[in-house]
């Protein structure tokens, strides 16, 4: 167990940090460069006001037409994304581990809140899965990788939930938890999960394009 733990919490963790940060920076820089090459006017006509206006309309619940049309999906998506970020970043166990290895720390949320948030993430993933299978037009557009990405996101939360409660095979589940978290982070720059990086760029671009150039709304 020590051998596996030392590997996933040692070299593999470093690899994750390098792939996640290095990959993210690389992807952002290359998309910025590509935008310049494909369309020289992008930067010349870029307008931060319209860009931010669009971002706001897509980051606040029900602030755009698409969300109003799909209230359930909107609620689940917002709950999902909020919990997805807050639970791991402010989980006590993560804070104390970071404190031990880097001697930095920040606030944490009570375990019970993190527990509820974890359940919300897992339930949301199940919702997204059912939606993908049951709604014909989404099912038709789905590829195998969509399901794999969903599983990659759900895995750290399922294993984290099981590990916290110590119900079954505690040691193995904990190792799988660390491993699945690392896999998820490494996948962010290189899969559909890259919308975590590109959301602001694409929204900003669209907002600027629609607002400044076409004088219309994009929400």
């Amino acid at each position, binding site marked *: 167990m*020590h051998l596996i733990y030392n590997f996933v919490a040692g070299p593999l963790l470093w690899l994750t940090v390098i792939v996640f940060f290095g990959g993210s920076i690389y992807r952002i820089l290359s998309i910025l460069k590509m935008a310049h090459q494909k369309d020289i006017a992008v930067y010349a006509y870029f307008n931060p006001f319209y860009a931010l206006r669009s971002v706001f309309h897509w980051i606040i619940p029900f602030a755009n037409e698409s969300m109003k049309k799909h209230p359930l999906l909107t609620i689940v998506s917002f709950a999902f994304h909020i919990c997805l970020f807050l639970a791991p970043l402010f989980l006590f166990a993560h804070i104390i581990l970071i404190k031990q290895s880097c001697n930095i720390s920040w606030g944490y949320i*009570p375990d019970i809140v993190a527990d509820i948030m974890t359940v919300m993430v897992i339930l949301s993933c199940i919702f997204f899965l059912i939606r993908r299978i049951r709604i014909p037009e989404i099912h038709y557009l789905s590829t195998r990788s969509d399901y794999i990405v969903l599983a990659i996101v759900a895995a750290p939360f399922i294993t984290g939930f099981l*590990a916290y409660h110590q119900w079954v095979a505690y*040691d193995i589940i904990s190792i799988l938890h660390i491993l699945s978290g690392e896999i998820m982070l490494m996948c962010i720059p290189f899969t559909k999960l890259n919308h975590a990086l590109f959301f602001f760029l694409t929204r900003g671009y669209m907002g600027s394009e629609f607002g400044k150039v076409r004088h219309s709304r994009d929400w």
Partner: protein
Amino acid sequence: MKIKNWIGIGIIISLIFATVYGFSQEEITQLHDSTFKTHIRPPAQFAHDQHNDTAQIADCSTCHHVYEHGKKGEGESSEGQPCSQCHFNQDDNALELINIYHKQCRGCHLEKKAGPVLCGGCHQRK
């Protein structure tokens, strides 16, 4: 099923031990530092004497240390003084005290590649 059986056997054995020892002496079997106003984890499993026997730690000062001018005092020890006495001030964050426990316990386990390193290995839910 198997796990449950083992838990059952474990509980019975620990009950027997608890009664036998309960009448003879106060034996540390777990740590539940009362300096923490609230406990968010189960107590850390630590059968003091038995642990130090199996882990072959003869020197009490490995854990009950004394520091002088930033250097660990040789041949001196501080057993009987709770860790919190030196490692916790009223205005300290609980994180600091938790951290020195973890540094000492988990740190040695990592170094020796023996003993629990995952939260639940020490903070076992019963």
